[in-house]
């Protein structure tokens, strides 16, 4: 209730203070930042509405197509195409003599397809690698385009004011016709992609499989490239030649970090595309003549940065935390194992392990051992005696220790008996693998070794019964330590 009243006040203030309508975004800038922001959300300026609609449509079509080129490892094809359409734009202009969007669109699409075709022909008939082919076509086509454009400038009829829009793009200058064209493009893209989804999916991930299914892989490739060219040409007016490739790559790459399923990736990419498009329009609305494209790109890149850091599975910070947790667990398990071995050495007389004994066994200083045991105590896996020099197991951690020792010794036995290792070569290997063996595999090992009682060094291997008798669920103990994460 309060919120809606505040919103109403906001609207009222906006209406009272800003009675003028701007023809273009950025014409009205003599206002406060907050007022300008509030003004954005009233959507009163027609130019703003067009820009926003353009950005949203652009985000959708680029996100969908970008997903395909990113998984196909052809991300820079978008960059190549966006430059290669220039001669088409110029030729269309020369042909029609005016800035007729339809002719320019047709010319640009033809030039883009020609560029795609040349890239694959050069790659197939020479030993030049794909990246050089792309750079080659990009630069050469662009040069031809520049030559044509400078010719147009020299001609008397050469009012090329519209051409610059293609180079740098200004979403604020979009008009209703442009928006209609972009909407058409987005609909066509969505329609064709959903019709050919299965085929595109197969051809993108496993070309040989797609061929063996009898899919027209080459036609699908050119279909994708055709759609790409078409939507690049349409988007150029909003973001410009250089930055249109960002709108193709960045949202799709962000989605790629977040999902392993193609349909979900496409959805995410379209989502990130639209949100960063809207963000770009919003930010460029805040100042005088700020360009829209760069802000869209910076928005998209910020989303990428966030996903790069904290994506649930692939994020940098997330993986770092996971590694930290794993190494902490291994340290805990090693300390517990040490405690168990101290007890074992004195035939399980008494409950407590003195830090001194533990330090001698692990060949560490008392201070180090104290630090380790304190960490265990903090994690609730051990208790310290009154004087702080004796460590005691908790029921949980005693079974953990036994389980680790059991893993270690079974593995040593397996290496000596089955893999014919020398008994004095197996310790280091077992030291590493004891932390990652799952309960299932240990059972198999045990069965294969015919339920042994002693390891190659004559030490006793704790049996599963013993561990269970200690009042703990062994399976749960294993599962709780996150073996699944280690992959």
């Amino acid at each position, binding site marked *: 209730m309060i919120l809606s009243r505040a919103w109403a006040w906001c609207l009222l203030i906006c209406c009272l203070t800003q009675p003028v309508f701007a023809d273009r975004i950025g014409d009205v800038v003599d206002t406060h930042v907050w007022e300008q922001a509030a003004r954005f959300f009233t959507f009163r300026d027609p130019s703003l509405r067009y820009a926003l609609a353009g950005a949203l449509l652009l985000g959708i079509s680029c996100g969908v197509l970008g997903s395909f080129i*990113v998984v196909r*490892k*052809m*991300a*820079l094809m*978008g*960059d190549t195409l966006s*430059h290669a359409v220039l001669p088409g734009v110029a030729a269309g202009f*020369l042909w029609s003599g005016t800035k007729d969007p339809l002719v320019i669109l047709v010319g640009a699409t033809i030039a883009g397809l020609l560029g795609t075709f040349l890239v694959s022909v*050069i790659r197939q*008939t*020479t*030993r*030049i*690698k794909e*990246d*050089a082919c*792309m*750079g*080659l076509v*990009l*630069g*050469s086509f*662009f*040069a*031809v385009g*520049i*030559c044509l*454009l*400078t*010719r147009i400038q*020299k*001609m008397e009829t050469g009012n090329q004011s519209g051409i610059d829009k293609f*180079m*740098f793009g200004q979403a604020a200058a979009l008009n209703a016709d442009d928006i209609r064209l972009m909407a058409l493009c987005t609909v066509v893209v969505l329609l064709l992609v959903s019709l050919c989804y299965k085929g595109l999916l197969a051809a993108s991930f496993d070309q040989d499989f797609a061929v063996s299914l009898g899919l027209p892989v080459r036609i699908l490739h050119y279909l994708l490239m055709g759609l790409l060219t078409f939507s690049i040409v349409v988007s150029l007016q909003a973001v410009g*030649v*250089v*930055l249109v*490739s*960002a709108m193709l*790559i*960045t949202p*799709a*790459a962000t989605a*790629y*970090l977040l999902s392993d399923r193609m349909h979900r990736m496409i959805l995410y990419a379209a989502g990130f595309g639209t949100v960063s498009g809207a963000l770009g329009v919003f930010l460029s609305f805040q*100042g005088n*003549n*700020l*360009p829209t*494209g*760069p*802000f869209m*790109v*910076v928005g998209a*890149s910020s989303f*990428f940065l966030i996903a*790069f850091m904290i994506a649930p599975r*692939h994020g*940098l910070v997330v993986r770092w935390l996971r590694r930290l947790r794993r190494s902490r667990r291994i340290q805990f398990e090693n300390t517990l194992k040490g405690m168990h071995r101290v007890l074992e050495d004195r035939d399980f007389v008494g409950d407590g392990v003195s830090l001194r004994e533990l330090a001698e066994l692990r060949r560490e200083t008392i201070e180090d051992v104290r630090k380790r045991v304190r960490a265990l105590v903090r994690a609730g896996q051990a208790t310290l005696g009154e004087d702080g020099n004796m460590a005691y197991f908790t029921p949980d951690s005693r079974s953990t220790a036994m389980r680790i020792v059991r893993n270690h010794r079974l593995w040593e036995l397996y290496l000596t008996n089955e893999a014919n290792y020398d008994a004095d070569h197996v310790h280091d290997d077992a030291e590493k693998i004891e932390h990652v063996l799952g309960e299932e595999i240990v059972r198999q090992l045990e069965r294969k070794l015919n339920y042994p009682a002693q390891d190659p060094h004559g030490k006793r291997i704790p049996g599963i019964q013993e561990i269970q008798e200690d009042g703990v669920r062994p399976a749960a103990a294993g599962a709780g330590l996150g073996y699944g994460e280690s992959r």
Partner: protein
Amino acid sequence: MKGSIASLDLSAFLLQPWQDDPAGYGWIVLMAFLVTLSCGLIGNYLVLRRMSLVGDAISHSVLPGIAVAFLVSHSRDPWIMSIGAIAAGVLTTFLIENIHGRSRIKQDAAIGITFTTLFAIGVIIITVFAGKVDLDQECVLYGEITFIPFFDYVSLFGRPIAPQPVFVMALVTLITAGLIMLFYKVLLVSSFDSGLAGSLGFNQRMVHYGMMCVLSVVVVSAFESVGAILVIAMLILPGVTAYLITYRFPIMLVLTVVHALLSAFIGLHLGIWLECSMAGSIVVAGSLLFVLAWIFSPSQGLLRRVLYRFRWRENAETQAGGSPA
């Protein structure tokens, strides 16, 4: 539209300029040659190492570097611009490597994300500080060799030797060529067989980063003449043209020089004939040379392939006809 292109009058387009203004056109050709040569020399390695599109990336992402350098120093001094460019180039390389190495993003996508982001930041800096930065995005995207001021001469020992831009470009070319000669073996080995280079104890990362620094300087000094996008063509064209003709690396370097010289001359005359952008026409000339090499290359050309296939079929037919059925 045909009428707007002048008919091909050889004497007017080949001889007239040299009679009218030999010095002016001479400097333009020399400048074009130096730009194409320095780009081509470093570009050879990019082509061989399959890093052509890293050249694309760096040519765009030096923009924030030079914008910041200009904001801080308020001068267009080539040295300061170079420092900004090197910083941006190293940052680009670092970002690409990290995005690619520390996540599942492939290298091509990492390149795309990095350079577009840096370029966007550069454009934002330029527009936000529009009053203070005497740069605009257009001058970076398209340069034009004929707009370069060739009247400010650099003097050595009291005698003017060359216009300042030509002098700087010559210096850059000399440094590039000198570094290539100095590290010829290292670059050769690490470009063809990185495993061997590693086992010989060459520091691959240093080679990579060093090359990116040189690339950034070359690119930023070529900006004024050709702009950020045509630079990519200049980086790649000489290398791939030579790559089609020869299998030997030293010959490839020599062919790069020939390619640079030819495209500078042909480009100039093409530009005069068509009355269009000189930078564009130089690249178009370079592309034409590539197409010629593609068709007529003695070892790998299209023509040879066609002839070979034709002769093979002929042989097969005569053999089939000659043998008793």
